[in-house]
């Protein structure tokens, strides 16, 4: 620690105890793996923080990087001894929801990136067992090197990890059952807040041969307790993987009218829930290509009805210019014959129900793909190929400056066209009332990762330069949480700054869900050391202090 710099301390821990704890951490993992210099600690800040450089920005006091499970257990014991809050991360790439920063200023980050063993990948029974530090890139490389016939469902950025992503309820891009990353996990090993090691489900049976295949073992299913929460440090997880298909096709559906969305979603739901199609990507071609400006005529209709959008004019503009109102990319997996039959069936279903619906096949490949095909693939993640191409969405465009990042507002709404159109209207009204340009238009599309619901997301820009922008954004975000809740929509995930607000609207019966979680927290983690406040769950010693 540089002498003159003001040291960040863990909350309610004095400097002497903290320095002693550091020595003990160093004994466990080795000096090299305890990061205490300011320049090192700063690398654990949230690059997309909505409160960058403000006093409440959650900067850790220390980061400790264990390699083995036993070290994690020792770290937890030391944290208990000194009542130091610790915050586990796996790969720490949770950008938009907190990055590698903890929930509170001063929490000690336990960086599990060095725990990166691929324990098993089985391409006959289609599962893998991984440590937290294994990234999607690592796993892909391993499977390709070993010529394994399985693929992992992944989020858009490939540098995160199956363990970290699933523990924050992340989502991906293949068949529904794989897209739900927490849902596709099977079996867990966890270091509990007292340092004991627990294996869940089949893992509880010593010598069990189905750790990653049967989710339940016997008795209560407790795995859910360890996601978006603070009941332990997960050190191993099993996941179900999808066998590589023999054939892959990407079909594109277009429809001419806004209201076509209503029958369209119904049919799409049928196709998805019958496993005929993979992840449908909804878009509207009325949105300009990234970086380009919107057509000025169209833009003028966004506010031409007393400051609000004129939907008839927008629809008329689309029809006149022959721009389809909605466009959906549809991946289809199988063998050549089944894929072809499914494409025909899909064509039939849509053209019967929607006037002017058109379907075109734009990619049609036998697997394995050639290098060139892999490179040119429109949606690499739909075939489990990790990449970072999604970062286009915050880069510089021809017409605007780059963003510093974004903070996701991610409410879940029903998978229903009418509800989506209503949701657009409510958001537009809210922006109007706030006197801001609406970030939502009558052609904003739903996100479709959660296969039984839509997410209607807004990516608010954050700034590392301008605190006012961040403050304003936090206010809008918090307003949106309330507006959404009033209509029965709740966020699926949120960054640390918003977790109390988001969990706060899940308050049925005098917030019994929260009270139940708190009761568990006090029993399992009486010293309140693991990730205080994560998921809106505070330990007794901090309750009411930080979350008002």
């Amino acid at each position, binding site marked *: 620690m540089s002498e003159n710099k003001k040291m960040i301390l863990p909350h309610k821990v004095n400097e002497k105890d903290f320095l002693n704890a550091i020595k003990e951490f160093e004994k466990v993992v080795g000096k090299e793996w305890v990061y205490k210099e300011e320049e090192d600690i700063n690398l654990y800040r949230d*690059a997309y923080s909505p409160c960058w450089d403000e006093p409440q920005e959650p900067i850790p006091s220390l980061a400790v990087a264990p390699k083995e499970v036993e070290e994690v257990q020792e770290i937890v014991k030391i944290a208990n001894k000194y009542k130091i809050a610790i915050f586990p991360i796996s790969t720490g790439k949770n950008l938009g929801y907190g990055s590698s920063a903890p929930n509170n200023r001063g929490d000690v980050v336990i960086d599990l990136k060095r725990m990166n063993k691929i324990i098993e990948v089985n391409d006959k029974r289609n599962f893998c067992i991984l440590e937290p530090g294994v990234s999607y890139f690592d796993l892909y490389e391993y499977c390709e090197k070993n010529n394994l016939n399985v693929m992992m469902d992944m989020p858009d950025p*490939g540098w995160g990890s199956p363990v970290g992503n699933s523990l924050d309820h992340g989502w991906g891009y293949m068949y529904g059952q794989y897209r739900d990353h927490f849902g596709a996990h099977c079996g867990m090993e966890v270091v509990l807040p007292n340092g004991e090691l627990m294996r869940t489900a089949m893992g509880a049976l010593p010598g069990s041969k189905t750790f990653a295949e049967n989710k339940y073992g016997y008795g209560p299913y407790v795995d859910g307790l360890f996601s978006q929460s603070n009941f332990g440090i997960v050190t191993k997880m099993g996941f179900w993987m999808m066998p590589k298909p023999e054939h892959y096709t990407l079909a594109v559906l277009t429809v001419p009218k806004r209201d076509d969305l209503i029958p369209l979603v119904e049919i799409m739901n049928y196709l998805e829930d019958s496993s005929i199609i993979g992840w449908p990507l909804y878009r509207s071609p009325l949105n300009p290509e990234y970086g380009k400006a919107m057509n000025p005529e169209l833009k003028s209709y966004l506010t031409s009805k007393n400051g609000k959008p004129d939907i008839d004019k927008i629809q008329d503009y689309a029809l006149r210019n022959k721009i389809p109102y909605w466009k959906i990319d549809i991946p289809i997996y199988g063998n050549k014959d089944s894929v072809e039959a499914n494409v025909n069936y899909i064509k039939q279903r849509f053209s019967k129900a929607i006037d002017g619906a058109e379907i075109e096949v734009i990619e049609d490949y036998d697997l394995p793909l050639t290098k060139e095909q892999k490179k040119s693939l429109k949606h690499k993640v739909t075939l489990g190929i990790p990449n970072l191409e999604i*970062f286009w969405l915050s880069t510089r465009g021809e017409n605007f400056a780059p963003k510093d990042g974004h903070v996701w507002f991610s409410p879940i709404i029903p998978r229903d066209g009418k509800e989506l159109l209503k949701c657009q209207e409510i958001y537009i009204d809210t922006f109007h009332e706030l006197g801001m340009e609406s970030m939502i238009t009558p052609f904003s599309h739903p996100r479709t990762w959660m296969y039984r619901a839509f997410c209607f997301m807004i990516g608010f820009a954050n700034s590392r330069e301008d605190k006012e922008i961040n403050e304003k954004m936090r206010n809008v975000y918090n307003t949106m949480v309330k507006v959404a809740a009033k209509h029965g929509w709740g966020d699926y995930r949120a960054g640390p700054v918003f977790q109390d607000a988001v969990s706060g609207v899940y308050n049925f019966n005098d917030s019994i869900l929260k009270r139940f979680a708190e009761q568990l927290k006090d029993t399992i983690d009486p010293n309140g050391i693991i990730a205080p406040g994560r998921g809106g769950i505070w330990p007794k010693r901090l309750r009411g202090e930080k979350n008002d």
Partner: protein
Amino acid sequence: MIKKTLLLIFFTGLLFANDTNKFNEGKQVFDKWCIHCHGVGMPATDALSIVYKDTEISPVLEERKNLDKSFIEYVVRNGRFSMPFFRKIEINNKQLESLAFYLSTKNR
């Protein structure tokens, strides 16, 4: 005299070997962490092609002739716009030095 020359050749050889190792390590770091955004056709390259429009400067980092070592190190540890900074557990100081060496010497 002969001894001295031999020694010099020996050390220069070592220096070259060191540089080769450093260069190779730098490329490995680039391929692991940077290429996914800074490769040809990738988002950071697209963004830089707007910045360097109408100039001689290539938006592809691996094609650049004038990249400054300390600038590379600064950006990796401080981020730039939506590019986040990298922790030492991801890219340690030695790897970062190699990366900067690789990018700053590749086309010199």
